[in-house]
């Protein structure tokens, strides 16, 4: 066997052991989805200049500063806040305040635009968040089991996002302290159907909700 024949045999043998791109998987190869537009660096340079010498630095403990302020917030908790807590049916523990808002109050059926009737309870919750200077607010959307599971998850995510946007735009709450989650129909608080298999509209109504957890620390 000549040398060139040996080389070919060796190369073919190596090829057998190397992974071959599978046409059924789009991302087997590195697709540069993170391609950065050429103007991004220029925009970033301008943004950096606008920030000045501090470059927008924040102290790491700036959330902790808020927590320290919490004690004062509790001590000086006004009557209005106590009333607001009662009005929205808030449950308070040592670490957080938990509010459940009925989905039917917040949104029309299958929609994610906030209803006018929901503005007042949301405004009160916004006041509570601000009074406690909460460092972390978790807004989670939930649905009943009507409809496809994936659709319900999406709907619950959008609803939670809508509530976050409302708090940011209408109540002046820093969006960076708010986190949203969409659980769809996966975390019911009541049965969606009766033991005999029939529909349970009351249970489903309870499950259509937005939960807001206002962390105190």
């Amino acid at each position, binding site marked *: 066997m000549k040398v*060139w024949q040996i*080389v*070919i045999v060796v*190369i*073919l043998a190596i*090829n057998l052991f*190397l*992974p*071959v*791109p599978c046409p059924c*998987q*789009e*991302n*087997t*190869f*590195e697709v*540069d*989805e*993170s391609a*950065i*537009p050429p103007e*991004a*660096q220029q*925009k*970033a*340079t*301008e*943004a*950096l200049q606008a*920030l000045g*010498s*501090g*470059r*927008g*630095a*924040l*102290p*790491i*403990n*700036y959330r902790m500063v808020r927590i320290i302020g919490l004690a004062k917030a509790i001590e000086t908790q006004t009557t209005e806040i106590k009333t607001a807590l009662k009005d929205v049916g808030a449950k308070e523990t040592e670490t957080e305040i938990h509010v459940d808002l009925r989905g039917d109050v917040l949104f029309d059926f299958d929609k994610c635009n906030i209803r006018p009737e929901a503005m007042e309870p949301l405004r009160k919750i916004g006041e509570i968040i601000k009074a406690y200077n909460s460092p972390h607010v978790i807004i989670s959307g939930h649905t009943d089991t009507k409809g496809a599971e*994936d659709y319900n*998850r*999406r709907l619950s*995510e959008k609803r939670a*996002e809508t509530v*976050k*946007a409302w708090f*940011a735009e209408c109540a002046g709450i820093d*969006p*960076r302290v708010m*986190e*949203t*989650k*969409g659980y769809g129909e996966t975390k019911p608080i009541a049965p969606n159907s009766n033991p005999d298999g029939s529909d349970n509209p009351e249970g489903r109504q309870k499950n259509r909700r937005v939960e807001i957890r206002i962390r105190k620390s």
Partner: protein
Amino acid sequence: MMHYFKTGLLFVMLSTFVPVVSVFAGEVIQTQESSSWDGIEADLTSLTIKNNIITVKIKFRNTASKNQGIKIPYDSCFIMDATNQKKYYPLKDSDGLYIAGPVSDTQGGGRFWFDIHAGQSKSLWIKFPEPTDNPETVTISLEGIFPFEDIALTR
């Protein structure tokens, strides 16, 4: 004649290496799991510094068997200089949008909100200010992902 045949054959076979090798060419600086989405892993694939601007690229891989909706508001991302106790949020353009991408929508200054199918991946990039105190390492924090810690800043 045989010489040309041999040369051509070798060229064809060697050329088959090129795309295969490129699979392994993507460097991963650090990988972290998700704290929110089962089966999602995040690879920090690139960190560059130019003109006091840090650009990071992160690739999300869905190792689970089902579709995952990944939502990361860019306003929740930051880099942290633990040595000097400072944190820096992504840079914003004159329209108030974070200089990052891809952007699914502009709510809150822009968000990464995409479905990643099982076995698939999707990447994002973000531009941050370089910390002022020249730290040797930083932590990169994204919502829903455990932080990338002790990431070296090579200037």
